[in-house]
């Protein structure tokens, strides 16, 4: 109960401040713009309700992109880490290209991916996965490095094969690292999905934000952002839940 109370109070206080500043027109005056361009939380809440079916429809599109892209990122991230853990050659050769890949601005390559894969869901999944797999790979690899060499020797005298050592010792040892990377990755999914939609799409919260911005409907932009945040918090909570179940010894 208390764990929820503190963040709720903080959010309520910030919303209250925002409400006061926006409703009185102080924020708009400060920016030197029209009052209607600075929506108050109450107006945003109203828009959330008014546009609920439109928001839900688009949220579902974006959520699917996030979930599938994230699932792909987990598979690829874990896969890369495994291969790099097992093979020193793979680790040494693929680390620099992977880092280089992370420095490519996602805004630049997403239009290219749209050209390659079309306007469907495929380029969105690819972009979300591209953004999210790297932290998973890096921290899972760090997790593998925490394997106690003495434990490996012990397993060898207990007649374990290389594959059994990997399954019964290395993978469980790497799980805390895997989850810390996964938690970082999961909060990137909405940003990545929105960028992907901006590069070319016909639906989704990112698509909606782009249109509403063009129409100066700032209240609905914020409403869409609120839905996006809720999705991210939900996914983060799911990952945390999975972590508690799997890394039960911490």
């Amino acid at each position, binding site marked *: 109960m208390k764990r929820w109370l503190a963040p709720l109070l903080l959010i309520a206080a910030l919303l209250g401040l925002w409400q006061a500043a926006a409703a009185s027109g102080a924020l708009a005056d400060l920016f030197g713009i029209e009052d209607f361009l600075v929506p108050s939380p109450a107006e945003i809440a109203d828009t959330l309700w008014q546009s609920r079916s439109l928001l839900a429809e688009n949220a579902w599109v974006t959520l699917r992109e996030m979930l599938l892209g994230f699932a792909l990122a987990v598979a690829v991230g874990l896969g890369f880490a495994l291969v790099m853990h097992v093979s020193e050659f793979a680790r040494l050769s693929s680390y620099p290209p992977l880092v280089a890949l992370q420095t490519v601005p996602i805004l630049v390559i997403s239009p290219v991916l749209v050209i390659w894969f079309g306007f469907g869901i495929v380029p969105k999944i690819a972009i979300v996965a591209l953004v999210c797999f790297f932290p998973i790979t890096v921290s899972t690899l760090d997790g593998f490095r925490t394997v*106690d060499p*003495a*434990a490996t*020797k*012990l*397993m*060898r*005298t*207990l*007649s*374990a*094969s290389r594959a*059994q050592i990997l399954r*019964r*010792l290395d993978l*469980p040892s790497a*799980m805390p690292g895997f989850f810390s990377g996964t938690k970082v990755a999961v909060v990137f999914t909405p940003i990545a999905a929105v960028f992907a939609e901006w590069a070319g799409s016909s639906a989704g919260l990112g698509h909606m934000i782009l249109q509403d911005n063009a129409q100066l409907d700032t209240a609905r932009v914020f409403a869409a952002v609120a839905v996006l945040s809720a999705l991210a918090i939900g996914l983060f909570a799911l990952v945390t839940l999975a972590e508690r179940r799997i*890394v*039960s*010894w911490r």
Partner: protein
Amino acid sequence: MLSARDLQHSYGDLVTISSLDLDLPEHGVLGLVGPSGCGKSTLLELICGLLEPSAGSLAVDGAGSATGRLERCAFMPQRDLLFPWLSALDNAALAPRNAGLSLRRARERASALFGRFGLEGFETARPTQLSGGMRQRVAFLRTLLSGKPLLALDEPFASLDAITRAEMQSWLASAHSADPRTLVLVTHDVEEALYLSDRVVVLSPRPAREVALLAGPEPRAEDRDAAVTDPAFVAVRERAMRALHESAGRERVP
């Protein structure tokens, strides 16, 4: 069961074992005592086939190659190294699992011995929920269930408090007489080595060589406290201590 002739080992220029002869019959217990860093753990890794000697011969049950020795030796590390993600039962059942037994069959094997090891009722407990003595017993059971003919114990009770250590020593002595195995016991505790072993090799500081070969008095008293306070036992312990100190080039502190 174990035989070493002119065994030598070095890491690059660092000579860890200069020349060592060891003999251990089946179901015997060999104690290895030496100062910290004298190469005791290296010696165990050599015996278990985790390392190859630089020179000399080393055979376990007739097998001289590292793979051959690895197949015949199980190792109980200094820290218990129980896996925190496994229950006590599943930790103990690791070797049968590695041997390809199903989870159910492997657990049956381990749980059959849980009572004898004083672990009944703790099958599903995680290692963090066990006391130090219990953790060592699970670790020992895990080594035992490997079914290997030679068990190498590296300071198995070093991490325990004095009272628990004494308890574990009498427990190991009775477990060994009930179900004899061939044991190599590395320790820096002279009393522990003499109490548990048939013969004790006292090693010099690095590079390790034998400075004394001793045996506790026979027959040993059933009760540990009686055994270690027996004047004959105390006398052997004195000789072992003197050998240790002389090899370290230091006079005994009175």
